[in-house]
């Protein structure tokens, strides 16, 4: 299958949006450059996972991670980490998008937010691509992979924070953190709001703050390069700044 890459100027373009709705994009040559990307298959997958219950969203995330892993991640990284590629691919999936994200019909803002979303840590495809890549490169056993996918989705808040910081956007660090969370059953604690700390912002979460401490201490502590056993005591130390973790510490 061949994806034609879009020419600049498609963003925030009312006519482009209208042509998408009316299924006219593919016949208008002016929207496309001469560049193409080849993929064997380009199956549909959830691209915008903001609605529904937590359980429903988890299923959608898992589906996206699995499909991306099986069909998209063997392309050169220049392709699957390229916003232009994803936008070019998504506009070929008109029917799927309109069926699954009917809000796209309601206005160009929704179209921009769902289909032409900026490709960074807030973009669902970006999150899933990086997560899938980090996990698959590190873990070969299929069951273990599923376990990590699940851990990733259960700890999205801290995962988002990890990929937001450039220094932590790294496979080893992510796997280590997920392992530590799993071993010590910290998921709930890390997601919880910080209490009795008026000096911090209003919606401060424990997990984000722990990552913030890692960021602050780098490179005096080169945390992204550490082994899990080296990372664990430091993680618990930072956790103790924001959470009374005596119970957790006793288990170690």
């Amino acid at each position, binding site marked *: *299958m*061949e994806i*034609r890459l879009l020419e600049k100027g498609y963003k925030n373009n009312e006519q482009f949006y209208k042509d998408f709705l009316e299924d006219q994009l593919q016949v208008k040559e002016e929207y496309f450059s*001469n560049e*193409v990307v*080849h993929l064997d298959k380009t199956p549909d997958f959830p691209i915008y996972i903001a609605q529904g219950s937590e359980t429903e969203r988890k299923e959608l995330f898992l589906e996206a991670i699995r499909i991306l892993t099986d069909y998209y*991640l*063997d*392309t*050169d*990284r*220049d392709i*699957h*980490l*390229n916003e232009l590629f994803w936008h070019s691919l998504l506009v070929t999936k008109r029917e799927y998008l309109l069926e699954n994200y009917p809000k796209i019909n309601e206005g160009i803002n929704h179209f921009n937010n769902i289909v032409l979303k900026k490709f960074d840590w807030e973009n669902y495809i970006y999150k899933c691509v*990086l997560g899938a*890549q980090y996990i698959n*490169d590190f873990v070969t056993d299929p069951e273990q992979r599923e376990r990590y996918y699940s851990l990733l989705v259960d700890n999205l808040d801290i995962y988002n924070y990890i*990929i937001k910081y*450039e*220094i932590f*956007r*790294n*496979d*080893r660090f992510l796997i280590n953190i997920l392992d530590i969370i799993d071993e010590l059953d910290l998921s709930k604690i890390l997601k919880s709001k910080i209490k009795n700390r008026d000096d911090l912002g209003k919606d401060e979460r424990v997990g984000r703050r722990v990552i913030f401490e890692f960021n602050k201490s*780098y*490179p*005096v*502590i*080169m*945390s*992204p*390069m*550490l082994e899990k056993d*080296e990372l664990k005591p430091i993680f618990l130390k930072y956790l103790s700044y924001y959470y009374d973790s005596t119970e957790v510490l006793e288990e170690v």
Partner: protein
Amino acid sequence: MIYKKDANFPYPVLTNTSNSYASSQFILDVELHENVHHYQFDFNYEIDSEFMNNLLKNRQAIPILIIQSKDNKFFKLDLSQRSIKLLKSRISISSRTSIQLHIQSIEDISFRRNEDLSIFYEKFKDEIVVPKHSILGYSNVVMFEGSTTKPLELFEKKLNPDLKSAIKIELSHETIVIQYRNEEFQFNNLPKSNTLNNPYVYTGMHMALQRFIVNNGEDNESVDLLEIDPPANPLDLKLYHLMRKKMVEELSIDTIDEVIYAISDRMIEKYTSVVKGLISSGN
């Protein structure tokens, strides 16, 4: 994370720009090679602080290579390691890629015997102990701004109605020229006309490599690319650079097709998929 500017550290760090060390340097040098599936980073580094080199030798500190493109990759290096190979599906170099070498302590390090520090630390270096997991030094940054190898730039297309054949492929001084008697043969009216011309490109490449062997090989049979000097002929020189960049070491009459596969970007696969696409779309 890569340090492009000086940063403040609570202890002396070896860099090429700070004054913490008297005259020591930490120079990193990287060469990039690629083939169809991989990028290979060959590097060399030189640290002229005896103190630091001893830490490395005694495994009290380790070198870590950092490759930063869209994200960070860290490689803990063996002392003798001078090469890193990465799948193209796992690193992007089309946007800016920066590479730096860091030295990390793996135990607490006393600077008492560090004779390489600047005079400023003379009086209190006995008291300096750098904790484990800390950065001890970082090199200069080596940058790559995209891959430069575009095999198609070797080619020129020309229309020549007087041609006695449908197409003719010639080798000029600097390029491989594909001449067409009729514009239709270029498929210009079809989408992906460039890709549809790939079989001609293939033929041209074949011809050029044959001549390369004749021009540069001793026996008209094969060329050892590691042995020869860069050719003087401009077209041969382009091909030479392309092959070396793609890690081709030898070219012979028998291996021309393999070499074309290595230096071209899946030319025939792309051609096939375009033709299939045209058939299935009813064109």
